[in-house]
């Protein structure tokens, strides 16, 4: 991966800017595989995303991934919601992670990134993570009368009623 050196300075600058602007929010910042990974408190998510898009130039939200760490040691929330951002010219990658307890909600990214709409609906459908501020949060894959959230660890692979 040739872009090691040049990238670090760009990402370093962003880490300082983030910790400067949002002192309470940024819990941890680390460099794994030359990607900046930042753990945030979920309340500050909307403002951090707004800052990253407007000032830091991260114009594309590539993916919203949710991890169910049921039974994993520690961690204040059951679900970890990961936002993957990318800045187009210069191709900088950023990973924002926020922990959410079961049943709790976190601010939605739709006002900032329009492509978060369906990704959030998928996260809700599969995990039951609630996003407040989302235009119409309802199931995207499963039929509307489906109970339970399939991708949770405690949901059986073959489905509750034996996958009739």
């Amino acid at each position, binding site marked *: 991966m040739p872009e090691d050196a040049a990238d670090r300075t760009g990402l370093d600058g962003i880490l300082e800017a983030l910790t400067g602007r949002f002192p309470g929010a940024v819990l941890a910042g680390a460099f794994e595989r030359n990607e900046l990974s930042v753990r945030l408190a979920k309340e500050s998510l909307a403002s951090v995303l707004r800052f990253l898009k407007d000032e830091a130039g991260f114009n594309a939200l590539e993916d919203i991934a949710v991890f169910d760490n049921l039974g994993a040691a520690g961690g204040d929330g059951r679900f970890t919601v990961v936002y993957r951002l990318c800045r187009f010219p210069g191709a900088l990658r950023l990973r924002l992670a926020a922990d959410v307890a079961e049943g709790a909600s976190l601010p939605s990214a739709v006002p900032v990134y329009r492509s978060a709409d369906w990704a959030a609906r998928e996260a809700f459908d599969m995990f039951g993570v609630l996003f407040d501020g989302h235009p119409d949060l309802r199931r995207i*894959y*499963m*039929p509307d009368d489906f109970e339970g959230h*399939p991708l949770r660890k405690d*949901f*059986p*692979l*073959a*489905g*509750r009623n034996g*996958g*009739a």
Partner: protein
Amino acid sequence: MSEALERSPFLLTKADAFITWAQKNSLWPFGSGLACCAIEMIATAAARYDIARFGMELFRASPRQADLFIVAGTVTNKMAPVLRRLWDQMPDPKWAMAMGNCAIGGGPFPTYSVLQGVDRIIPVDVYVAGCPPTPQGLIHGLMTLQEKIARSHPTKEILDPDARRRS
């Protein structure tokens, strides 16, 4: 008249032979594809494998005009009622073909949202195995279906309509 059916007089078998000859040589498939098998179905209808030679290239988009329902792809629980209604909309002498392992028995997806086999909702005449079946496999399945139609007795049904329900 029904005991005459048992002896299948010369006149009736001749009529059967003619009707089934027509039905088997003008099988219009229903142009509905679900997943990967649909692409192989289209490749079978395309230039190189060309099922037009058997008169089957008229993929009818409306179920009303189709005779053969090729279930090509994975049937999910959300799609099953739609599939069942499409099957009911097709006019009567109709045949169903489960193309690909997903349609036969859920294929590589033993999951919460996949119907484990389309024969749970519609009566299937021919099963074509493969994931996806090669065009040659599909044509072999179509040939088997043609043989099955050739053996059927449509006149018995016309003269004795509730024969199917009894058998």
